[in-house]
């Protein structure tokens, strides 16, 4: 989402996810805070972090070419990873199960779905609907879309572009905290480098679904996951990643703007 609106690749996003998961881990295990508050705490800290990063690293580059911002994002990503290693050491942590080991049994035990998957999917749908509503209906949301379409024109219409982008970052970071908790509940292994791969995969999913389209990002994410699992199950576990990327390439060649992206006509 941040990507669609601020028109930049935020490589540090995955690392914000990682920080969120660590905050949650420590509040759960060491300070014995109840789960709900732990998640809220993680969201607050990540939001603060997101705004801070935006202020210090990205804002001075608002007028700079997008590549410069990209490199800065990589710098931020390095920084967060190494800071996390210094703070929490490099040894992996096992994330405590937030929801317990229960799994739903459907069709008399034929199909078992773990509680975590159910909650993850539910959370995704809620977040997606919420975001769609937010960007479509509220004033701030509309301002975001305006900034995304044309920064200059938006400014002329009296929208505070800087503030809007900051708000976008804050929301993106808060959601990253939730993503961190969900990710680590599903795959309970937490390391300073945990965020790197989800960051790239999230970006791939966003492009796959069409940049700037929120339902597209979700569809892209689900499809990429499915392709990876089916590729592993039916073709080869060694080549599953290669297959995912190959499908991505083919789709982009057929639909160059992603699955649900708008085809922008070029004006001469």
């Amino acid at each position: 989402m941040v990507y669609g609106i601020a028109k930049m690749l935020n490589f540090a996003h995955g690392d914000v996810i990682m920080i969120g998961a660590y905050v949650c881990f420590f509040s759960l295990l060491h300070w014995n805070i109840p789960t709900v508050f732990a998640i809220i705490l993680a969201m607050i800290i990540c939001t603060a972090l997101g705004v801070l990063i935006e202020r210090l690293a990205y804002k001075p580059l608002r007028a700079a070419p997008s590549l410069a911002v990209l490199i800065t994002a990589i710098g931020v990503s390095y920084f967060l990873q190494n800071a996390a290693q210094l703070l929490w050491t490099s040894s992996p942590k096992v994330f405590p199960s937030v929801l317990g080991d229960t799994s739903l049994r459907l069709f008399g035990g034929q199909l078992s779905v773990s509680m975590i998957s159910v909650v993850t999917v539910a959370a995704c749908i809620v977040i997606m609907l919420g975001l769609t509503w937010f960007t479509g209906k509220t004033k701030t949301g509309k301002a975001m879309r305006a900034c995304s379409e044309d920064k200059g024109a938006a400014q002329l219409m009296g929208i505070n572009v800087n503030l809007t982008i900051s708000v976008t970052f804050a929301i993106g970071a808060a959601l990253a905290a939730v993503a961190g908790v969900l990710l680590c509940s599903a795959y309970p292994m937490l390391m300073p480098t945990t965020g790197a791969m989800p960051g790239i995969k999230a970006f791939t999913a966003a492009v796959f679904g069409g940049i700037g389209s929120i339902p597209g990002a979700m569809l892209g994410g689900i499809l990429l996951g499915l392709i990876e699992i089916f590729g592993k199950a039916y073709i080869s576990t060694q080549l599953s990643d290669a297959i995912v990327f190959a499908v991505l390439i083919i789709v982009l060649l057929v639909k160059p703007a992603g699955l649900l992206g708008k085809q922008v006509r070029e004006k001469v």
Partner: protein
Amino acid sequence: MKKLLCSMIAIALTAAGLVGCGSSGSNSATSSVYKIGASGPLTGGAAIYGNAAKNGATIAVEEINALGGIQFDLRYEDDEHDPEKAVNAYNTLKDWGMQLSLATVTSTPGAAVATKYFEDRIFAITPSASSVAVVEGNDNVFQMCFSDPSQGTASAQYISENSLGTKIAVIYKNDDVYSSGIFETFMSEAAARGMDIVSTTTFTEDSQNDFSVQLTEAKNQGADLVFLPMYYTPASLIFQQARSMDFAPKYFGVDGMDGILTLEGFDTSLAEGVMLLTPFNADAADERTKNFVSKYQEAYGEIPNQFAAGGYDCIYAIYEAIQQDSSITPGMSAEETCEKLIAKFTSFSFDGVTGENTTWSAQGLVSKGPKGMVIRNGAYVGM
């Protein structure tokens, strides 16, 4: 040019030696300091291994220095688990005046610097770089750990001799030197012994979160034993995911599995009944291990794993070798020390926390008895 380079190094070394003497001229005891260099991944994804080995070695150095007599100065450099950075780290250490070395912690960088150690004739013993490529053709590079092929063979032997399983599934990490090295020899030994391998599946660095597909495959093939040649981090996820899909085979791991019980937040009941071949056991009752484990816990707040134990043993092996051969002195050139230590290492036997009666072949491969361990009630028990 090469000759020039050699003489240059010699000059640099002498200069470093002179500086060393000069700075500590007032105290004659400290002039007998051996400079031990080492590199390992201290940052990045493999940082846990590098830091563990460094911590273990540091404890050994502190103990030895406290005894008086032979003094060590240990310097660890970061190689980020990357051959390029490892060579840089090696050169940094060479500029510093390293006389002895613990080589690298991981295999891929180890193979890259091993030839450098060979060319510059600096004695090296690695705590954990287990690939054969590290020692092959390099007579002055030794291993404290088992080499990958020998672990694969030993595992297959152990499983078949104790008939631990009839239908075996293997899951390994195919972009990892350690994991695929063990896998290859395991498979050839298993074939030679007529073992029934029903499923082999893989994962990579980028996909080590989700094992549902691999486990489903193993389950559908009716596997009753799963062989896991990998480190404990992915293994812990495998145990958890297998339980959530009601799949309860026996598990057999290698020395990388050691450390699983110390994972912060890990539910040790998941690892109940896991078998592994490992040279090191943090719960062992012998005096040496107890002392090491308690010191390590005190200093770093963690229970040491096999990397830490390897680092600790490497320092002690060098210490004992130097102690036994009184002709080795700190003022000697790295090359001379190297030749003497090669002779010593191929002829003596060493008792450490990772095994007793450890001996080395001329190739640098270690020979010691692997301990078959099984996890019972969250602790290792000998099998």
